[in-house]
Structures are given as structure tokens and as C-alpha cells.
């Protein structure tokens, strides 16, 4: 089936936006300026939990240059949240009313003629609080008698639970020869996208709003902003410029988007908010810290029989995308291996910390750190090589996860074999010790979600394709390139399907008023599969319009087939019989009496279970050296074998892999948001919030294990987030082999290693 793919599929086409970005010509939201534009500033809560007793804005209004000051009491006070399907989960207000729930909770906003005046006015707002007891851990928040962070929440501070259960757990544990129980803990880290959030709201005629914003979900922002302003959805137009990374941190409506739009409508002038890095690190979204209990049972020959997986997610003050993480954590507790009995119980818990939300891998990196580490521990005790133990239990094509999904393509076993061979695993594993080690971790991930939590009435993705008589074409798509490269890959898919050159395609993207509805955005590794399918459908409709031209022109017998390649449309059996793509369009438009040629395609997964239409798989091996006196870990080499179906653009996949290893390295070894006992984040700059640098990056070998995913465009599935999952357990296992220290907690800092080895109190 792969051999039938157009020749553009599988080519490493360089990113079309690369030159613009590398030379500094790309325009980001904060680069935009409008006549009369005002600058906004936010007032945030300095305390983690409290009641607002009084808000005094009189001094702020008198600051010269100030044009508007708003508090929650001036707004329509409409709650919002991404899970529209469950209205009770929508727990956030753009500006606090009555109560603040974390250090940084937004309580007021101002706008002024310049930034300095806006900041001065923000400082002049006086807020009196009555402090309430603040809860900073899931244990405290779920303890008897704990203060309720949201009074209207049903179940104490547990905002949402998810249960998955199949098979006879008790019977399987009874049958098991080897059972172990472990508890793992993971920490909060941040997306650290290079572009801090920025938004500009421009008031338009008729009380409408155009919002330029750094987002990965323009449609979600459009709907929720309209909802919170009390406007029809179509009164809000969301546009983006270039986006400097998202990683899950820009997929919700944000308070400053609301404040910009609300004050733009009140003042009649454009209003801009741009956050600083300090704002982002101190108050921004983060990856969920979790406490993960896992009990597994094996037969003595290594067959996994049962698993009990119980997770508490530290959600922070609001739900944000936590419910989805709670669901996916359960899915990824059982996605890699086929076993008869599984129970998952996930609880999403409110605490008085900045809300956790989606972040690359969406619950899976945490679940995998526990699952893969535990499997490595079991392998040691069972005396089975960890790669062999995985081969015994690995998921395969056609396997069914009860009530969840059927795996329609799976190259997991091949990935395990490949990574074993690439890394020289067997010899190196035997030689491990004395500060050198090699370890393994694996992953699986979704190619977009099925579960419609946003409750959209439209298709999940859409594409409009227009073709012109000069041989060019235009793609209208709401899909967001947030740096991952979809502006290139989607055009590559369209060029392949229409048989035209990629540089002939103009892209109109991310303008909710000018692209077909809908698009759920860039998250869950959904864009290539879902938007790719929509584009292919639209292109095929165009081709149906062009094919008759050839039949008429060359008086063809109906048994002939028409080809589209190299900017030509031709008879497949006799390629000389043909014409340029532009000429075919010209003739079609003539025949349509001047009506332009365009078509719209859609995609929504159907009959694909509850989770995802397709799953990626892969295995990764890390080689490390540990300085046993200082505890410093250096990762010397990474090996990855990866099944992402057909790689549409291998260079883009490699970019994802490099980026994922970089993020995984930080997550495993050094990144950590450190908080004091008042709920304040202490490391709010890149000197103290430590991201791996280019100099820390290990060399990396990788192999694509190509499968053909029947549901994917040209056989493709996800390559964005899955790769961010295996690095922590692989490095943790390598550190264990090198030193004897098994990390049950992240990050694996030098101090933890030395303490674990008894070399430090």
C-alpha cells in the first residue's frame, strides 16, 4: 500500500517557514502594533487562597494615561473551561470574583497608553484579602476536613474521577507467581515555549472583536471568548501570526484574552497583553505532578496478568485540561502491553497552586515513568532481560483494548528488536555498573482524540481547497503550526494528492473567519492524521471535477484512469495525452461558466473506540555515565526505534525526536518548578529553572519502523508527543544500572542519587 503513495510522500522537504524564522522576519503577536493601541497589565493574587474583601481601583483610575480598569465585578461573570461536555467542570472565571485560589490568580486588569502607565496603575489597585488555609499537596487536599477550594464541587477537592476496569483482577493477582506494588512521584515542569503568551484584541464594527493571539486552538478560543463575553460565536474572529511553541500550554481561553477583548469593546481601542518569562514560570500552566500507585502481577515466565493503577493528579486551582490528562493517564497505563485484567482509578485533585494542564504527552509521560520503571524493576527480579519481558507482553496489530480501542497498526515488537540491535544492548547491559549504564523505556501515543469533550457540533477537522487556472492552489485550514511543522506537512499532503508542486500552494491558516469549521487545534498529536484526511478528501473532490475534462478532451474509453503528477493531469496508460494542471482548471472553470473551483473536506473519527483512531509505538535506549562522587548524570547516547506509520516528512519526524529528547532530558534530570510553603514559585527565570542546553544534548540514533496505518493519510500516524514519553524511564533505568540507585521520583537530581546511595544525608 505504501508503494501506491504519491512520490512526494516520504520526502524530507525543508520547512517552508524556516528561512523566515531563522532570519528574524517572522511576525509574532507581540510584533504587531495598531493605531491607538493600548497596553494591558494584570493584577494577580499574592496569596494562595483567600476571600476578596475589598477592591479599590480609585487610585489606579487616576494614573495619567490609564483608559480602563476592570475587576471581576465589571464582567459578565461567566465561567468557562475546555470540557463543555461536562458543564460542572467549567470552573474558571476570567477575573476572580469573591475568591482567589492560587498565587497569580487574576483579580483585575488595566489598560493604558503605554506599558509603564499600565503597570503603575496595576500597582495602585488595592485588594484586601481574608486568607484561607491553603492546600499544596494531593494528600492534604484529600484529607478529612480539608477546606474546599471550590465550594460548589461535589466530591471535596476531587474534581473528576476516571475508572477503567476489565478482566477479573482478583483472580489474576491470585494466579500470579510474582506481584509487586510501588508508588512513584513526578513533579511539575513547564512547557517553556520560547514565545511568552501575547494577545491583541481589535474592536470591529458592530461590537465584533478580532483577536490576534498566540494559541494552538483558535476555534476553542473563539467559542469560549464569545461565551464569556456573551456574544454570538461568529462575533469573535481569532487570528494568529507565527507561534513560538505551545506544547499544550496554549490550548485554552486565557484571562488576558478575555481582558483584552472586554476592554477593547469598552474603550473602542485595540488592547495588547504580553506576558513576561517571569509571569509564565511563576503563574503559567504546567505538567501535572502525580502520585502513582501501581500493582502488577506476572506469571513466572514473565506474562503480565494484572495491573492495578491508581493515580492522583495534582491539578492546581482549576480543572484546565486536567480531566483529559486524567483520562489519558489511564489509557497509557495499559496501552503498550496486552494483559487480561486492568483497573485504573484516576482522581483529579484541586490544590492551591497554578493550574496544571496539557503538556506534550498529556498524562502519558507520568504514567510511563511509573509503568516502564516498574517493568524494569520486575524484569530484574524475574531474572528476565527487560527487552525480552516487553516482547513477551507487547501489543500487536489487531489487539483489542476492551472498551477503548482496536490497534489497527503496531510496530512495537519490531521497535524493541531494532533498538536492541542498534544500541548493542546485550553486550552493554552485561558490562553495566561502576558509573556506566544502559536502560530502556517505551511508549505509545494517540493520533488525535476521539472523545468529544469540547462538544463541537462540527467535524473535528476541515479543509477547503481552491485551484486556479494559473496552476496554483490555495489551502484554507484552521490548523495551527505552533512550530511542529504542519504548515509544511499539510501542504506536502495537498501537493502530493493534487500532483502539483508544493510552492504552488498558498496557505490561508488560522483565521476563524476565513477557514472552514471546525478545527479542534494542535494537541493530542492530531493534526497530520485528522487535517491530512480532510485535505485528501477535499483534493479528491477537486480531482473528480478535473477528470472529466481529460475524458472529453481525448475522447477516452471509460476504462481509463487519470493521473495527477508533476503539475500535469494525464491519461495513465498514455501519459503523453494530458495537459498542465492549470489548463485543466481553466477548462473546468469554462465548463462551469466561470464558477471558481473549490472543495471542502472533513474528518471526524468514527467507530474507532473512545480514545484515538490510531496509535504510535516505540522503544528508546539511553546510555549514561554517572559521576558517583557528585551524582551528576551525563547522557552519552540515545537510540530510538519508532513506529509512526508512514513518515510523510522524515526530516520533520527527526526534528520532533530531537526536540522530544531535549524535553525529556530536562524533565528527567533538571527541570522542576520549586515552590515555597506559601505557594509561591521560586525559580522564575531560565537561570534557576534549568532547561537542558544544546550543549547537553547527547548524540542520537534513530530508526523508523514503518507500518501502514489504514486510518491515516497515506498510512501516517502521530510523531509529535509519543517521543516525549520514554526518555525518563530509559534514563532512570540506565542510572540504576550505573549506580544501583533506582529513582522512584523525578527529577533524578545529583542530590537524590547521592542520598539514594547513602553518600549524603
Amino acid at each position, binding site marked *: 500500500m505504501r508503494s501506491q503513495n504519491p512520490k512526494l510522500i516520504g520526502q524530507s522537504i525543508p520547512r517552508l517557514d524556516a528561512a523566515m524564522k531563522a532570519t528574524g522576519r517572522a511576525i509574532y503577536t507581540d510584533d504587531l502594533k495598531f493605531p491607538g493601541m493600548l497596553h494591558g497589565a494584570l493584577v494577580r493574587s499574592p496569596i494562595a487562597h483567600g476571600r476578596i474583601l475589598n477592591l479599590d481601583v480609585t487610585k489606579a483610575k487616576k494614573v495619567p494615561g490609564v483608559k480602563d480598569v476592570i475587576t471581576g465585578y465589571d464582567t459578565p461573570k461567566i465561567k468557562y473551561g475546555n470540557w463543555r461536555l461536562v458543564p460542572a467542570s467549567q470552573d474558571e472565571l476570567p477575573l476572580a470574583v469573591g475568591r482567589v485560589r492560587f498565587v497569580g490568580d487574576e483579580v483585575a486588569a488595566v489598560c493604558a497608553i503605554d506599558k509603564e502607565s499600565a503597570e503603575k496603575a496595576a500597582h495602585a489597585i488595592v485588594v484586601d484579602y481574608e486568607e484561607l488555609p491553603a492546600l499544596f499537596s494531593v494528600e492534604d487536599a484529600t484529607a478529612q476536613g480539608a477546606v474546599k477550594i471550590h465550594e460548589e464541587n461535589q466530591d471535596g477537592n476531587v474534581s473528576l474521577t476516571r475508572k477503567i476496569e476489565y478482566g477479573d483482577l482478583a483472580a489474576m493477582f491470585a494466579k500470579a507467581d510474582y506481584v509487586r506494588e510501588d508508588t512513584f512521584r513526578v513533579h511539575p515542569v513547564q512547557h517553556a515555549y520560547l514565545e511568552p503568551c501575547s494577545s491583541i484584541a481589535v474592536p470591529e464594527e458592530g461590537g465584533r472583536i478580532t483577536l490576534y493571539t498566540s494559541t494552538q486552538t483558535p476555534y476553542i478560543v473563539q467559542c469560549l471568548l464569545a461565551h464569556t463575553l456573551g456574544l454570538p460565536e461568529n462575533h469573535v474572529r481569532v487570528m494568529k501570526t507565527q507561534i513560538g511553541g505551545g506544547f499544550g500550554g496554549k490550548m485554552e481561553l486565557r484571562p488576558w484574552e478575555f481582558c483584552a477583548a472586554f476592554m477593547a469593546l469598552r474603550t473602542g481601542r485595540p488592547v495588547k497583553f504580553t506576558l513576561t518569562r517571569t509571569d509564565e514560570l511563576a503563574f503559567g500552566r504546567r505538567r501535572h505532578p502525580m502520585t502513582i500507585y501501581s500493582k502488577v502481577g506476572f506469571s513466572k515466565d514473565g506474562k503480565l496478568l494484572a495491573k492495578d493503577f491508581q493515580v492522583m493528579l495534582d491539578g492546581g486551582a482549576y480543572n484546565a485540561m486536567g480531566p483529559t490528562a486524567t483520562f489519558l493517564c489511564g489509557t497509557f497505563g495499559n496501552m503498550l502491553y496486552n494483559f487480561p485484567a486492568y483497573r485504573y482509578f484516576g482522581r483529579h485533585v484541586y490544590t492551591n497552586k497554578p493550574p496544571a494542564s496539557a503538556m506534550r504527552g498529556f498524562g502519558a509521560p507520568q504514567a510511563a515513568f511509573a509503568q516502564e520503571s516498574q517493568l524494569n524493576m520486575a524484569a530484574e527480579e524475574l531474572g528476565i532481560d527487560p527487552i525480552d519481558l516487553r516482547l513477551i507482553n507487547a501489543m500487536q496489530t489487531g489487539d483489542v483494548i476492551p472498551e477503548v480501542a482496536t490497534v489497527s497498526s503496531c510496530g512495537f515488537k519490531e521497535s524493541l528488536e531494532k533498538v536492541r540491535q542498534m544500541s548493542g544492548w546485550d553486550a552493554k547491559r552485561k558490562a553495566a555498573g561502576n558509573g556506566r549504564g544502559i536502560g530502556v523505556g517505551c511508549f505509545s501515543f494517540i493520533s488525535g482524540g476521539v472523545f468529544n469533550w469540547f462538544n463541537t457540533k462540527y467535524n473535528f477537522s476541515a479543509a477547503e481547497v481552491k485551484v486556479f487556472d494559473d496552476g496554483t492552489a490555495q489551502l484554507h485550514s484552521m490548523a495551527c503550526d505552533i512550530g511542529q511543522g504542519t504548515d509544511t506537512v499539510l501542504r506536502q499532503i495537498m501537493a502530493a494528492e493534487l500532483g502539483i508542486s508544493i510552492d504552488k500552494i498558498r496557505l490561508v491558516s488560522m483565521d476563524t473567519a476565513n477557514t472552514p469549521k471546525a478545527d479542534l487545534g494542535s494537541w493530542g498529536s492530531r493534526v497530520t492524521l485528522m487535517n491530512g484526511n480532510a485535505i485528501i478528501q477535499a483534493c479528491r473532490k477537486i480531482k473528480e471535477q478535473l477528470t472529466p475534462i481529460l475524458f472529453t478532451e481525448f475522447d477516452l474509453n471509460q476504462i481509463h484512469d487519470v493521473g495527477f503528477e508533476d503539475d500535469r493531469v494525464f491519461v495513465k496508460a498514455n501519459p503523453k495525452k494530458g495537459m498542465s494542471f492549470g489548463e485543466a482548471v481553466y477548462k473546468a472553470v469554462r465548463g462551469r461558466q466561470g464558477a471558481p473551483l473549490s472543495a471542502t473536506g472533513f474528518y471526524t473519527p468514527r467507530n474507532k473506540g473512545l480514545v484515538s483512531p490510531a496509535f504510535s509505538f516505540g522503544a528508546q535506549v539511553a546510555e549514561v555515565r554517572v559521576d558517583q562522587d*557528585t551524582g*551528576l548524570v551525563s547522557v552519552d547516547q540515545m537510540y530510538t526505534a519508532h513506529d509512526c506509520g508512514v513518515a510523510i516528512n522524515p526530516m520533520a519526524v527527526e526534528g520532533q525526536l530531537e526536540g522530544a529528547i531535549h524535553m525529556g532530558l530536562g524533565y528527567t*534530570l*533538571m527541570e522542576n518548578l520549586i515552590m515555597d510553603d506559601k505557594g509561591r514559585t521560586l525559580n522564575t527565570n531560565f*537561570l534557576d529553572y*534549568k*532547561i537542558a*542546553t544544546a550543549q547537553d544534548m547527547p548524540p542520537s540514533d534513530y530508526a523508523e519502523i514503518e507500518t501502514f496505518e489504514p486510518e491515516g493519510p497515506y498510512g501516517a500516524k502521530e510523531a509529535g508527543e509519543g517521543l516525549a514519553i520514554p526518555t525518563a524511564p530509559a534514563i532512570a533505568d540506565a542510572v540504576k544500572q550505573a549506580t544501583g540507585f533506582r529513582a522512584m521520583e523525578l527529577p533524578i537530581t545529583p*542530590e537524590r542519587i*547521592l542520598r539514594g546511595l547513602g553518600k549524603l544525608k
Partner: protein
Amino acid sequence: MAMPHFQLHQPKSLEEALDLVAAHRSSVKIIAGGTDLLLKMRHAGLAPQHVVSLNRVSGLTHVSYTDEDGLVIGAAAKISTVAEHPDVRRLYPALAHACDVMATVQIRNMGTVVGNLANAAPSADTAAPLMAYGASVVLVERGGRRQVKLPEFFTGPGATVRESLEVIEAIRVPAPMQRTGSSYHRLSARSKVDIAAVGVASCLVTSMAGEILAARVALSSVAPTPVRAYDAEELLAGQTPDEMLLKRAAVACVRASSPIDDVRATANYRRRMVQVLAERSLLDCLAQLEGGKK
């Protein structure tokens, strides 16, 4: 935050610079590389009305070495210039190493070694090696000039003995004696492009007979200022160095430290690392001395 408004002065001579500092004494800062100062002005509320730049003052960008005068690092000499200087690389390897690994390429190309000392961060990377080499700071004011040894120069985090009308003209480092070994070790959570969580520099000079004539060990990031480890130095003086002795000296170094817990490391870890790095640094010195004998 926006940069506060200020007037920039770019004198051509040291006399002119001293006059400007005196004339604007109520609100003046001295700038060379600006890699610390501009951050404080942009983000930490520092708002001087006048800024006097040393970058055009003749002679201050120089790095020079003679056997008679030793090493002289001018106030406006960039960190990268010092790192690349052949005499620094040949005779002061601990300082060269500090200048190679500290901060980032951009900061090393803009920032100055004198500025690194003047900023007086407890973690200043060049402070420990310069202390180990017995360096002094040359302070000038109108009609006067004094030389202050580094251990006396620092008085607390961000604080030095520099008087408000004084300008640091240069750092002077004595020429190393025959049979000198020196080394600087530092570590941090991120192996590259990071601030040091602990730093140890040492310098040993031995006699023809192999006895230690002079030992200096200096620590950074483990006390309110960079400090000398005098106990360890006393233990080493007059002895013939071997591995056992150096290990005992490394243990003694810990007594000179008074670290705190912060987001970069705990005090316990820092104490432990003083010993580990001191041992490594002293063993490096020994290896150099033994290598020199051949």
C-alpha cells in the same frame, strides 16, 4: 520592565572617568560589559541618573604579562579576551578554565573579569581562581591608588570595600613561581551554560625538594563571599604532598564553607561537594607538579 532614563558618559582617560564619578556622585554607576548592571537596571529597580563607561578609557581593555609584574587584567578586558590570552592559558590554567566555562558565549564576549569581581556574587566564577593565585584589585580615586588583596576585597553578597568615588583600574596577579600547580573545579545541575553551585580553586607551589612552599585554596558559592580555606592551607604548608594529605586537606576545606539551602542546591550537598571538588582540584595540582618533574 522598561530601562530607566540615564545619561551615558564615555570618558577617554581614567582621570576624566574619576572626575565624572565624583561630579555625579549622588547617582552614578560604572559600566564595562554591563552584563550584570543592565539586568539590575531593567529588572531590579536600579535607576542611576548617570552611567560612566570604561570602555573607551585608554589602556583599560589590556591584558598583559611580564615575569616582573605578573598578570595585569584591565578593568574593561572581556572574559573571552582573558580566556584566550596565551600567557593566561600557559601560566594561569585555573583562571583560563573559569573564563572558558562560566556563563554563556554571549556573556563571556561582553562581560569583564573585573566586573565579575565588582558584582561580588558569592558564585563569581573568576573569584576563586584569582584568590588562589593571590590576586589583588587596584582601586583608584582622584589623588590616590590602593591595592587590596581579594580576601579583603569582598565584604558580603554584592558588597566590596570599594568606596563610592573609587574605580577599579585592574586586577594584578603575581607571576607564578617555579613548580606551581593550579586547578579550578566547579559544578552545577546543568553541566553547561550554568551558574556554579559550588566552585573550588587551588594552587600549590613546591620547593626543589618537593615540600609545599605555598598553598592557597579558595571556595565560591558556599559562603556569603568567595573565601579562602585557611585551615586546609595550613595543613598543607611545609608538607610533602601525597594523595592522603590532599584528601585530608579537602576535608579541612569544608570547615571554611558556610553554605545555605537554595533553589540551586542544599547546604548539605554543597558541603559534600566542597570536599569532592577540593580533592579533585588538589590532585590536579599534584599531577601537574609531578608532570613538571619529568
